[in-house]
């Protein structure tokens, strides 16, 4: 049989899609339909309105959120009869606040959500909202509407797609600034292509039927050219086709349609601080889209990333965010520090390729670097190739695509970036530069003083050595600039004080000039090398600190067993590593705004709910809580919904007090990590590239830990399921066998009586009738046990506890065994009035005695004695039912309480009359269930000299009740 089972990963993806669909259904997330076109003027808005009119005619509640008719009559007519939401007015004062205020009207998101129509029309998805709107972009408004369960119709032109942005720019020469993430389009439920042949469009344009904003008038000629339009049309058609293709694949996956698909390609794109890097990422995205490949964007961080200019760091981060918005996975890897041989671009290339290997990347996309020829030559001389050539050399079987870059590679090679000495070496002495320069002057003075003491005794060359020693000290402790100062001053002082003629800078012997030159050169070299070494050591130490804090968290996370533990550990570590208030939350339908807070960390943990006033009261400066109140919570909600970072330092909901990171794993979003710096200093530090990258790493760790805990939980649930499944199976087979046996007797006897009753003698007939009655009673017992055991198991039993005596419990338990007990001695010991009363369910407890005695009767030969004893032991009453039969086998004492377990003796020697022995192995399970429900204990032990004893204890957890005695015993 061919193996047609679906691949687990695919199955998982399908389950997730179905779940997402189910969740969508549950929360009634709206559906998004995009009318997609190649350029303005193809009639998207018209098509959208026409569709809306059709819906309205069917009685659907359609509302126009915002539609730009641009005064065109035929379009305007299409809005007739539709409910139109009034727009929100915003007074815009211009960037500098001085120009004449302009009143802008914008789509009113709040009104739309309040109105909650079935279908909302929102034109121009890529529109950027006026400042002061709650969302920066209209597509964010649309997402909000969808989340609120409103179906949205919208329009979009191909040039606004993020991944196509620069292609469009190349084609048309017009750069479009309003872009939307591809994921928005990919998440659309329906895309309708509104197509018009370029000639027809140009015709419309000439007829004045296409609205062109005044500002774009000059671009019109370059934009609307037949060639451009054809290219744009091709782009739009291709994008739509891709979307349809993707839908079809999802459909196939969902419906178990299997054809052979090539193994998924993975494309890795190397990100650099270069301004060309975003272009590279977009190109890689297009490549990935056409190959249906996964995209990974990687930034390789050098050993001295700390010294990278802030602008570069920001660019790297932005490029990584861009990659994320294009649906790529992002990663940051570091190299260098520990291994001297691996520093420089070669180390970076090696790290990149080894990362690519570890992720099964099939293609690496890098930018082509154009170094100055001289620099290239020096690179060759020093045995260094360019980054791209290093990657190509190291790549092996991985395909490398080198795309045109525009920047000098030097930006990428951090070792050659300008070094701020004060910053790099200043960790030992964090005093400011002037103080350190002063210190270096003092150092030179000290060297001079020391030299003057020994001046008469030693050679001048040794004096020079003393000064060089001073330079080393300065380089070590004070940093690069003070070391250089010390070097220059040292040479000057050496000349001034010690080289004849003394106390003048003049030199008598020309050979001293060589000494000075060498001394200066050696000093500067020492200063440079020492400072560099120190910078490397610092970087290594810093990385070590980060690694240590990550490791500390990882270790604790590994030990965490529950979701709450994991979140608590994460919140504490992130709070201490970032000097911030932290919250870890997961999505939950029952919590406010659907955000269920798992754990807090930091000093003022309640900030997620904190209002703006509280913020001001707390005196936190520089953190304006514009929204206050639930604002932070809504941001957390947004992040949970969209899986992208938001809040502080992002373009989305930037007014929030904190930054919210999605906790995502390969399995999807598991939660959100919110972080709010407690001081302005911490805030500026948090927003630096390396800290943000570190935060990403922390978030990834936490996400993995949460996922692990969840997997453990679901695995446990699965295990329990499997166990109960197994028991159900055992139950079925047991039921079918055990219930059929008496039924067969009954049916057989009854049919015998019916068919040939008159031919049987009366003794045989009464025998048959007796067995019908006996077997029916047995069947009844089996069913009752089964039902009772099931109820007990499912917790559907209410105990009706009242006071009872042991004697009466035992008596009731024995009642139905009266006939069987007539044939064997039964001893009862200590059941009388000496025992305390027990508060039990007086209907259930006798069943325990009944079942235990039944076992004793069933599994021991007739005539074997049975004894029942009871006594008080501490705060318990213990009841013991013992037989003198063959007893239990070793190791059976625990197993006998398992469901459907039948003792060895039960299988070997079934004593007593035929048919009496077949139980279902439920008796002891029921006993255990009843006793446990009474918070007692039941166990088995060997009886002496032989046989088995079952004991159960009942706790005396309530004071004995009062029973008024009769005043006296009177003769009756």
């Amino acid at each position: 049989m061919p193996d047609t089972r679906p691949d687990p990963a695919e199955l998982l993806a399908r389950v997730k899609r179905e779940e997402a669909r189910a969740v969508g259904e549950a929360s009634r997330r709206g559906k998004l339909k995009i009318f997609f076109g190649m350029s303005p003027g193809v009639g998207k808005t018209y098509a959208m309105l026409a569709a809306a009119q059709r819906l309205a005619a069917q009685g659907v509640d359609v509302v126009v959120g915002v539609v730009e008719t641009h005064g065109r009559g035929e379009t305007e007519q299409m809005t007739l009869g539709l409910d139109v939401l009034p727009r929100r007015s915003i007074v815009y004062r211009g960037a500098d606040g001085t120009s004449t205020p302009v009143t802008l009207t914008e789509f009113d998101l709040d009104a739309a959500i309040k109105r909650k129509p079935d279908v909302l029309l929102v034109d121009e998805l890529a529109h950027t909202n006026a400042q002061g709107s709650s969302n920066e972009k209209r597509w964010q408004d649309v997402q909000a509407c969808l989340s609120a369960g409103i179906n949205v119709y919208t329009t979009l032109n191909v040039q606004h797609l993020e991944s196509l942005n620069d292609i469009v720019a190349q084609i048309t020469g017009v750069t479009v600034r309003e872009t939307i993430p591809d994921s928005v389009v990919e998440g659309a439920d329906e895309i309708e292509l509104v197509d018009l042949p370029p000639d027809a469009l140009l015709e419309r344009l000439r007829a004045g039927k296409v609205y062109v904003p005044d500002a774009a008038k000059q671009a019109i000629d370059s934009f609307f050219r037949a060639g451009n339009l054809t290219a744009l049309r091709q782009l739009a058609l291709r994008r739509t086709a891709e979307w349809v293709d993707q839908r079809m694949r999802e459909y196939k996956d969902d419906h178990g349609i299997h054809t052979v698909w090539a193994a998924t390609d993975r494309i890795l794109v190397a990100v650099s601080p270069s301004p060309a890097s975003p272009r590279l990422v977009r190109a890689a995205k297009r490549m990935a889209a056409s190959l249906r490949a996964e995209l990974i964007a990687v930034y390789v961080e050098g050993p001295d990333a700390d010294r990278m200019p802030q602008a570069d760091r920001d660019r790297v981060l932005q490029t990584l965010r861009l990659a994320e918005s294009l649906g790529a996975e992002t990663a940051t890897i570091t190299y260098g520090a520990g291994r001297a041989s691996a520093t420089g671009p070669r180390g970076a290339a090696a790290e990149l390729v080894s990362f690519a290997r570890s992720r099964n990347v099939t293609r690496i996309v890098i930018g082509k670097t154009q170094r100055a020829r001289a620099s290239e030559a020096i690179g060759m001389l020093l045995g260094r190739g360019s980054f791209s050539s290093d990657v190509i050399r190291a790549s092996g079987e991985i395909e490398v695509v080198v795309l045109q870059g525009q920047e000098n590679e030097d930006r990428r090679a951090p070792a050659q970036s300008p070094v701020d000495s004060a910053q790099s070496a200043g960790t030992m002495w964090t005093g400011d530069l002037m103080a350190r320069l002063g210190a270096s002057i003092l150092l030179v003075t000290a060297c001079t003083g020391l030299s003057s003491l020994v001046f008469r005794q030693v050679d001048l060359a040794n004096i020079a050595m003393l000064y060089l020693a001073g330079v080393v000290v300065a380089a070590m402790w004070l940093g690069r600039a003070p070391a250089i100062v010390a070097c220059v001053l040292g040479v000057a002082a050496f000349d001034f004080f010690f080289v004849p003629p003394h106390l003048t800078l003049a030199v008598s012997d020309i050979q001293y000039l060589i000494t000075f030159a060498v001394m200066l050169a050696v000093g500067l070299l020492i200063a440079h090398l020492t400072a560099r070494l120190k910078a490397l050591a610092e970087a290594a130490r810093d990385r070590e600190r980060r690694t240590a804090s990550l490791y500390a968290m990882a270790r604790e996370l590994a030990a965490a067993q529950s979701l709450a533990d994991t979140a608590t550990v994460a919140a504490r570590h992130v709070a201490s590593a970032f000097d911030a208030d932290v919250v870890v939350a997961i999505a939950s339908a029952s919590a406010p705004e659907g955000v269920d807070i798992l754990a807090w960390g930091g000093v003022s943990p309640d900030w997620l709910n904190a209002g703006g006033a509280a913020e001001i009261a707390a005196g936190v400066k520089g953190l304006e809580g514009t929204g206050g109140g639930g604002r932070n919570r809504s941001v957390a909600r947004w992040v949970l919904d969209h899986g992208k970072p938001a809040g502080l330092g992002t373009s989305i909901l930037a007014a929030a007090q904190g930054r919210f990171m999605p906790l995502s794993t390969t399995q999807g979003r598991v939660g959100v990590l919110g972080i709010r710096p407690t001081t302005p200093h911490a805030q500026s530090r948090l927003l630096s590239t390396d800290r943000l990258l570190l935060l990403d790493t922390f978030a990834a760790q936490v996400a993995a830990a949460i996922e692990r805990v969840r997997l453990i939980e679901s695995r446990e649930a699965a295990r329990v399921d499997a166990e109960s499944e197994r028991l159900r199976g055992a139950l079925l087979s047991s039921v079918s066998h055990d219930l059929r046996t008496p039924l067969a007797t009954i049916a057989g006897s009854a049919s015998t009586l019916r068919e040939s009753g008159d031919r049987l003698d009366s003794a045989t007939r009464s025998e048959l009738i007796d067995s019908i009655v006996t077997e029916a009673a047995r069947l009844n017992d089996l069913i009752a046990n089964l039902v009772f055991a099931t109820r007990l198991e499912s917790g559907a039993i209410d105990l009706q506890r009242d006071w009872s005596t042991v004697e009466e419990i035992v008596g009731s338990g024995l009642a139905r065994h009266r006939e069987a007990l007539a044939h064997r001695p039964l001893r009862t010991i200590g059941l009388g009035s000496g025992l305390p009363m027990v508060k039990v369910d007086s209907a259930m407890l006798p069943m325990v005695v009944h079942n235990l005695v039944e076992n004793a009767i069933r599994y021991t030969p007739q005539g074997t004695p049975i004894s029942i004893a009871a006594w008080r032991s501490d705060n318990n009453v213990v009841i013991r039912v013992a037989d003198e039969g063959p007893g239990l086998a070793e190791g059976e004492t625990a197993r006998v309480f398992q469901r459907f377990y039948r003792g060895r003796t039960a299988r070997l020697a079934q004593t007593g009359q035929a048919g009496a022995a077949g139980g279902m192995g439920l008796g002891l399970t029921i006993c255990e269930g009843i006793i446990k429900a009474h918070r007692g204990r039941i166990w088995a032990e060997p009886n002496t000299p032989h046989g088995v004893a079952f004991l159960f204890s009942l706790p005396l957890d309530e004071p004995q009740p009062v029973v008024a005695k009769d005043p006296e015993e009177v003769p009756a």
Partner: protein
Amino acid sequence: MNASPLEPTPPTPSGPGPLILIIEDEAPIRKFLRATLTAHGYRLVEAATARDGLVQAGMQPPDLIVLDLGLPDGDGLDVTRQLRTWTSVPIIVLSARGQESDKVAALDAGADDYLTKPFGVGELTARIRVALRHAARPGAPGTAGSSSVYETSADGRTIRVDLAARLVRVQDDASTVAPAELRLTPTEFKLLAFLIKHAGKVLTHQQILREVWGPTHQSDVQYLRVYAGQLRQKLERDAAQPRFLITEPGVGYRLIEESGRRGLNS
């Protein structure tokens, strides 16, 4: 199913026997009840629903009602309550095992006895007999006439209680010693007297407590347990295996019928 050779007699009241109304929705159960009870000389009326049962009971007042607690169109408990608003006809309820609280509720609502399904026919006829006998002496105080003496034997022991003379004697068959007179405390005697008055019938804890200790003690089951235990110590051979004062687990107590009338499960 093939046509049964035991085609039932039509359920028309005929003959002199007491009239029994069976309210039970299961046709096979009605069928064997009909077979048994007509064989025992009872006349039968049958109803398959609570509604029909109430109508039948009103149209032709029966001497006894056998009522299933689980009826398709209503709770047997409600039927009991409704019947009790206008008639004191003995009611025997049928219920499934494990529904002790239902039984207690039915008994407290005025039912006279109960049977747990499945039951033997012998058990049923015994209960019917007891119920009819108790109904035959309406409101009889234990002291009235011949019924003031209770005598019964089981397990080789005979108990004789003369309620009027307040005498309790216990005699073992094997023993040649003259029966000694038992000394009972006033409460023990009161309890025994109440049980004798309803001998053969089940009594709920509440019914006994209310009668013997008064309404303020009606949930103090411990009183009943202690005194039932004391009675057993005095009456029974082995208090742990009672033959006279039977515990109905989760429901109450039953003192066995007077001699020769005790019905046993087949």
